[in-house]
C-alpha cells in the first residue's frame, strides 16, 4: 500500500472521516469552539474529559481556560461523579468521553449521581453509532436507547456543525443534565442559515406527501439528500428532523406522520429502543395508523472496518436511503 493510501486507511479507521458532506462547508471542532466562546461569558462552566480531550474536540476550551479544565484520566465512573460534585458547588461541568463509555460504563452514575438529583451536568459523547471503524467496543450503537430510559435526562443527537454549536448554547441555558452525541473534527454544515435549535422541538426541513422521513443525528443529512434525489424521480419526500430524543416532540411527529402516506425512520443507532421505537410508540398513542419502515443498525454488534464501508454495508448512506424508499413501491 502506498503511503497516501495507508494514511487514508488510517484516517478512515480512526473514524475521522465522519464528515461525509464533501460538497458542503465544514466547521472544525464545533463543540469545543462553541464551549470556549461560552466560557467567556459563563465563568461557571468547567470542562472535563476522561483522557479523550484530543478526540472529543474540547481542547479549544482547555486552551482558553486551563484552570477550569480537569482531565480525570481513564475513569468514566469518576468522570461523571466528579462532574456531579462540581455541579453541587454551583459550577456547570461539560464532560466529554466516547458514547460507549459514558453510557455502558458509567450508566449507574449518569442515572443516580446526575439524573436522580437533576444536576447541571452536560455529557458530550463522541463516536455515535457508526462513526468509527473500531468495532463494538467503540461504536455507541445503543446509547440513545439507554439514555432515553433515564428520567429527567435530556438526550440530543445533532445533525451538523450548526446544530452542535446551537445545542451547546442551549445546554448551557438548560439547568439540568444533558447527554449530547457529538460529531467531531471536520463537521459539515447541513442546516440552512437561520435554523433555530430548541431542546425538545422537532423541525420540518422538507415538505412532502408520499414519504415522510423522521430522522435524527447525521441521518438527517442523508434524508435531505435522498429527498432531493427522489424529488427528481417524482417521489415527494418530507423530512422531519428530530434532534432531541428526550423530551420527544410527540406532537410534531404525530402531525408530520399523519400528513404522509408512509413513514420512514432514519437513525445512526440500532432500530430497537431509539428513534424508530419512539416514532412507533408516538403514532400508536396518537392513533395514527401508518406503516413505518426503519432505517438504522441491526440488533447485533458491528464489525471493524472503514467508516464509509460500514455505513454503506449497514444502510446509512444516501444511496441506501434512496434505495430503501424506492423499494417501498
Amino acid at each position, binding site marked *: 500500500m502506498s503511503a497516501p493510501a495507508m494514511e487514508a486507511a488510517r484516517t478512515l479507521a480512526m473514524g475521522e472521516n465522519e464528515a461525509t458532506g464533501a460538497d458542503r462547508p465544514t466547521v472544525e471542532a464545533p463543540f469545543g469552539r462553541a464551549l470556549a466562546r461560552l466560557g467567556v461569558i459563563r465563568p461557571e462552566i*468547567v470542562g472535563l474529559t476522561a483522557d479523550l480531550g484530543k478526540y472529543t474536540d474540547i481542547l479549544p476550551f482547555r486552551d482558553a481556560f486551563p*484552570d*477550569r479544565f*480537569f482531565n*480525570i*484520566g481513564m*475513569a468514566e*465512573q*469518576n468522570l*461523571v*461523579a*466528579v*462532574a*456531579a*460534585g*462540581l*455541579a*453541587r*458547588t*454551583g*459550577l456547570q*461541568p461539560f464532560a466529554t468521553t466516547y458514547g460507549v463509555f459514558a453510557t455502558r460504563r458509567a450508566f*449507574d*452514575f449518569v442515572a*443516580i*449521581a446526575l439524573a*436522580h*438529583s437533576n444536576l447541571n451536568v452536560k455529557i458530550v459523547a463522541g463516536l455515535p453509532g457508526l462513526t468509527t471503524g473500531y468495532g463494538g467496543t467503540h461504536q455507541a450503537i445503543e446509547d440513545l436507547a439507554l439514555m432515553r430510559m433515564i428520567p429527567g435526562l435530556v438526550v440530543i443527537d445533532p445533525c451538523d456543525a450548526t446544530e452542535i454549536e446551537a445545542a451547546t448554547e442551549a445546554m448551557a441555558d438548560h439547568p439540568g443534565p444533558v447527554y449530547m452525541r457529538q460529531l467531531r473534527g471536520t463537521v459539515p454544515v447541513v442546516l440552512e442559515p437561520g435554523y433555530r435549535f430548541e431542546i425538545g422541538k422537532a423541525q420540518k426541513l422538507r415538505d412532502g406527501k408520499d414519504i415522510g422521513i423522521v430522522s435524527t443525528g447525521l441521518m438527517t443529512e442523508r434524508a435531505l439528500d435522498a429527498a432531493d434525489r427522489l424529488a427528481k424521480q417524482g417521489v415527494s419526500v418530507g423530512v422531519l428532523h428530530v434532534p432531541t430524543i428526550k423530551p420527544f416532540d410527540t406532537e410534531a411527529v404525530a402531525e408530520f406522520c399523519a400528513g404522509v402516506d408512509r413513514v420512514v425512520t432514519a437513525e445512526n443507532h440500532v432500530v430497537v429502543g431509539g428513534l424508530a421505537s419512539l416514532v412507533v410508540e408516538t403514532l400508536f398513542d396518537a392513533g395514527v395508523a401508518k406503516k413505518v419502515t426503519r432505517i438504522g443498525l441491526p440488533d447485533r454488534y458491528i464489525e471493524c472496518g472503514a467508516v464509509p464501508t460500514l455505513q454503506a454495508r449497514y444502510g446509512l448512506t444516501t444511496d441506501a436511503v434512496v434505495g430503501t424508499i424506492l423499494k417501498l413501491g
Partner: protein
Amino acid sequence: MLRNSPPGEADIGALKARATKLRRHMLTMARGQGAGYIGQGLGVADLLAALYFHELRYDPQNLGWVERDRFLLSTGHYSIALWAALAEAGIIPVDELITYGADDSRLEMSTLDTTPGVEVIGGSLGHGLGQGVGQALGLRLQKSDARVFVELSDGEMQEGSTWEAAMSAGHFGLDQLVALIDCNGIQADGPVVLDMEPVADKWRAFGWDTAEIDGNDMDAVVSALAAARRRNGRPKAIVLRTLPGKGVPRIETSEKSHFFRVDVREWDGIIAAFETSVGEPA
C-alpha cells in the same frame, strides 16, 4: 456547628454524651420499624457525634450556606445514624425519627438527597467519594476553604469507582477532602467477603495522608479529625475500626448485624438494657 473559625478544644465528655443520644435515637427508630441497619449506625455514632458537634462547620438554619463543610454519607444504608445526627443538630425534628423507613417518610432506610441535610444520594455504593472529589475541586476553584468529608466503608472499597476517586484526589492534591473509612468488618453476605487489608497502606499508596484509629474511641476520633485539618496538598484518610452495634451488646453479638430485625418485645428489652448501661433516664 455554626462558626467560621476552626473548632476549639473538644469537650470529650460532652461528645460522648451526644453519641449516647444518637444511639438512643437509633434504637427508637429501629424499634419503630422493627428493623434497620442499626448495627452500622451504632458503630459510627461516635464519628457522627464528633463531626456534627465539633468538627463540621454548618448552619442548621441555612443548610445551603456555601461556606459550609459538606458531609457525604456514601453508605446510604447508614441513614439511621445520619437521621439521628440531623435530629440532634436541629435540622430535622426529633419526633419525626419514629417514621424511619415507613411509607412516605423522608427518613428513608437508604438516603435520598431530597431530605434536608443530605448532601449526596448514597445508596449505590461507590458513588460518594467521586462526588466528594468533585465538590472539593469545585470549592477550591471558587477559593472556598470549606471542607468535604466523605464517609465510606470497608465493603464499599470493593467497588472500583472508589479507587478511581481515590486516585484522582491524590492527583489533584485535594487537602480539603477527608475520607472517613468505616471498617466494621461486615457486609451484606456476612463478614467482609473479599480481604481489603492492609487498608491504610492502600490509601497511602494512592497519595493520601492516612491515620488508622479505633473509631469508637472518642479521643482518637477527635484527634484524627483535628490532624486532618492540615493543608499540605494531600487528601486525608481516616481508617476507623468500629464495632457493629457498639454500645448495645445484643446487637454487637448478633449474627444478623448487617440488617437487624427482632420483635417489639425484644426491642423493649434491648432499649431497657441500653438505658441501664448508660445510666441515664430514658
